[in-house]
């Protein structure tokens, strides 16, 4: 019964998954149905991996993933998007949903942290070595706009260090900052450690100690949905626990995420 | 009475009442802007009258009371009235056959017994266009297209067929063939044909209506209206010179007549023809003192730039219409202008129009306002009562 309610947006595959209760599964094999996870765009790599692992552990479960900027996701959930789990890239967007009554204020669990790192194109043409170097007006530095989480983090580091970055652009997402650096347009950009890890050879990361002043925390929570059946909620809870637990750590750490 | 029509459209100055009998073909003549196309559009249902009523074989086409926004106006497709315009307007995406089959195929419910394509073939045959069945409109000449359009209009089996200058857009060389076709298919059919072409009226119509300024100014059997015109407008339509006056003398039993002209002609040029006599032929006896008209073909008038000096009688000054040669009349006149029409040149004077060959016209080397002498044989002038 829970399966049918899991994803009204894509009901076709739900009945199919309900028919096969796990044969050789451990005690959690009672779980079946599907769960729709709304996750911040920066979690794309890790959550895709986590979903695969979760599905492997629970053969009756189907995980649907929806990635976008955290605030996009908030808008979508407020407008009635069928989210079961929301993983935000910051606490602010999570608060928006708890304030809106869509998530139990006690529910959010922090499952990862992230810190800023300087991203430079391969070869580091502007010779950036420290956070203070970003103040050099000759270097083209791109940051996030203060309205978005990474921008807020940048601003707080700037404030605590007193370094004023003459940014050539204040992007509205980390992706756009990273895009400017990987394409070589910018000499440096402030992004998350995890973004640099995901970008591979396209950029070089330069860690700086001041980043500790603005640790970004990733909360995850089950979305309350009026009329949603307990079966779905159970799967959602299991997924949240999975992410926040040891399995989550095993995937998140290699990607650069810190422990909460 | 098949069609009874009466409608007003004050914004176009249109006010016409008109009846057409079952099987009768009516020709509508008149100058540009006379309201001829308006009449057809009202009948076809493409225009809504401000006021009026029309009834076709018992079906009310429209019935609009004065100053009312209500009233019945039957939509075009329920009228059984087909309209054939100057341009063939064949549907470009259909073959000739499919064009003709359009009407039968579109007919709502009713008689579906006959296969539209079979019917279409019959009509194509009827207009001598069976060989064109598979052609697309862009592969047809103007005359061919118009013939298909005739077949298409007829295939919809209209109770009333409207033709708006069907030959006006055709080359002179192909018009005769279409006229023959129309003559055949219009026989015994209720139809209204608008035309500028007097030959159409003569060959196709039983009755003629002349419109001007949105009103009917004359009507009657074709012959009466056009063969012996009594007004300059009709004379113009019939392509004749018209002189009007009073019978002065007449040979008993017809034959020769002298008519004293009673109109002042060419006043602007200081030439006066009133009071002048012309001698003409008459088919029937004309009583002296009665009004008469004299018609002369422009091509029967000979023009010279010098007075016919070889004649024994001299011409009088000013308005002169004297028999200079035995059986000939000469009128002095002044050139208004010259105009090429087909392969003749029409010379217009204040009295008479004459048709010359281009060579003659060039030989005369005429200039505007020049004095000329127009001569015609009394055998070529026909007098009749008016």
């Amino acid at each position, binding site marked *: 019964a829970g399966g049918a309610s899991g994803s009204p947006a*894509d009901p076709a595959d739900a009945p199919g998954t309900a028919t096969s209760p796990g044969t050789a599964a451990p005690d959690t094999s009672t779980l079946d149905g599907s769960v729709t996870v709304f996750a911040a765009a920066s979690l794309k790599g890790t959550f895709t991996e986590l979903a695969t692992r979760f599905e492997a552990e629970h053969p009756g479960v189907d995980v649907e993933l929806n990635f976008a900027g955290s605030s996009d996701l908030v808008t979508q959930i407020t*407008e*009635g998007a069928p989210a079961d789990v929301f993983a935000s890239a910051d606490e602010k967007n999570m608060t928006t949903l708890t304030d809106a009554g869509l998530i139990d204020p006690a529910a959010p669990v922090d499952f990862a942290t992230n810190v800023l790192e300087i991203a430079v194109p391969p070869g580091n043409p502007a010779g950036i070595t420290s956070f203070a170097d970003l103040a050099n007006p000759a270097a083209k530095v791109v940051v996030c706009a203060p309205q978005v989480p990474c921008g807020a983090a940048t601003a707080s580091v700037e404030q605590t260090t007193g370094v004023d970055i003459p940014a050539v652009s204040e992007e509205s997402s980390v992706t756009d900052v990273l895009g400017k650096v990987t394409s070589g347009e910018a000499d440096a950009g402030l992004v998350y450690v995890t973004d640099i890890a995901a970008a591979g050879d396209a950029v070089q990361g330069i860690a700086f100690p001041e980043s500790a002043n603005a640790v970004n925390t990733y909360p995850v929570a089950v979305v309350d949905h009026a009329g949603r059946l307990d079966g779905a909620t159970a799967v959602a809870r299991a997924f949240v626990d999975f992410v926040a637990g040891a399995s989550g750590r095993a995937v998140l750490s290699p990607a650069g995420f810190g422990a909460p | 009475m098949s069609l009874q029509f009466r409608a007003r459209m004050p914004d176009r100055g249109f006010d016409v009442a008109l009846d057409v009998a079952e099987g009768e073909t009516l020709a509508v003549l008149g100058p540009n802007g006379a309201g001829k196309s308006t009449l057809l559009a009202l009948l076809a249902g493409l225009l809504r009258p401000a006021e009026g009523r029309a009834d076709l074989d018992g079906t009310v086409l429209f019935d609009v009371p004065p100053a009312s926004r209500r009233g019945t106006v039957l939509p075009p497709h329920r009228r059984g009235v087909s309209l054939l315009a100057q341009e063939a307007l064949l549907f470009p995406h259909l073959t000739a056959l499919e064009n003709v089959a359009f009407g039968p195929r579109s007919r709502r419910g009713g008689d579906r017994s006959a296969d539209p394509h079979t019917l279409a073939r019959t009509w194509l045959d009827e207009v001598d266009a069976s060989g064109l069945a598979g052609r697309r409109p*862009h592969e047809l000449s103007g005359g061919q297209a118009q013939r298909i359009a005739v077949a298409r209009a007829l295939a919809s089996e209209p109770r009333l067929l409207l033709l708006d200058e069907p030959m006006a857009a055709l080359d002179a*060389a192909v018009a005769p063939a279409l006229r023959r076709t129309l003559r055949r298919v219009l026989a015994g059919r209720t139809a209204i044909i608008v035309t500028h072409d007097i030959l159409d009226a003569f060959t196709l119509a039983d009755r003629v209506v002349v419109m001007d300024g949105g009103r009917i100014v004359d009507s009657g059997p074709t012959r009466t209206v056009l063969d012996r015109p009594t007004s300059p407008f009709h004379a113009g339509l019939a392509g004749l010179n018209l002189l009007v006056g009073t019978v002065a003398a007449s040979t008993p039993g017809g034959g020769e007549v002298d008519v004293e002209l009673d109109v002042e002609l060419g006043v602007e040029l200081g030439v006066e023809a009133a009071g002048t006599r012309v001698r003409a032929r008459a088919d029937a006896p004309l009583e002296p003192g009665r009004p008469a008209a004299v018609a002369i073909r422009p091509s029967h008038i000979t023009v010279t730039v010098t007075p016919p000096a070889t004649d024994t009688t001299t011409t009088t000054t000013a308005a002169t219409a004297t028999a200079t040669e035995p059986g000939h009349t000469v009128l002095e006149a002044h050139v208004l202008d010259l105009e090429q029409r087909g392969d003749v040149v029409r010379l217009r004077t204040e009295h008479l129009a004459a048709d010359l060959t281009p060579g003659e016209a060039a030989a005369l080397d005429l200039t505007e306002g020049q004095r000329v002498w127009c001569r015609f044989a009394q055998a070529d002038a026909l007098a009749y009562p008016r």
Partner: protein
Amino acid sequence: MSYRSLPRWLIVVAIVGAAFVVLPLAGMVLRVDWANFLPLITSESSLDALGLSLRTSLAATALCIVLGVPMALVLARTRFWGQKVLRSLVLLPLVLPPVVGGLALLSTFGRRGLLGQTFDAFGIQLAFSTTAVVLAQTFVALPFLVLSLEGALRTVGTRYEAVGATLGASPSTVLRRITLPLVLPALLSGAVLSFARALGEFGATLTFAGSLQGTTRTLPLEIYLQRETDPDAAVALSLVLVVVAIVVVAVAHQAGEASPLRRGRRLVPDAQDSADIRPVERRQS
């Protein structure tokens, strides 16, 4: 008789202009890592996205035709108060930033929107479903269809329709057997442009429909997401979209040129008519 002489400098400027458009596309092609191209575009998520894009774009095109043809007809064939304003409004999605379009759609069809509550009461939830993708695409693509078609309808005029009516065809028959066949090329080219625009739709879809693999994540959204991890892969995927779009635009232009009305009137001389002409005759002007 033809006259085709353009000043030299103008041709130079035109080449600069063409380069401005063509070079970026060439630049993209050069950046593609051809070794990984095939695996990338045949990955499950890419194929899912491409399939979804094609399906939703087709559905959106169909919806554009269903809604757009009547709209174009009403705009071209009737006169009513406020017609000009309505035409401006209909063209608006053409110039609206897509994100704003998505917000507008949410404010109507979203759960808290004008109609959303009504729909909700009937248990219909549009937002974040494949239907929402189709609606978003239709919203941005509709003006292309209406624009092309209205112009063609005005060009064709009402004369053929009037003839059809006098031959006994009802308004619906006239529409089906005369009007639509006459504007078919414009309808096709409008539909193809709509399809292309729907295929490229991104902002409104993201805002209004979300980005759920297999359900709402169309190819442009996949490309956007792909940029997060692998910008070069994004470029490669874009190339797929570009190729589809080029094909589609080329087809649209082809269809536009085949219009029966553009062909003009060829007068094929015919024995039946010209046999009438005799030596004494000459053409009358």
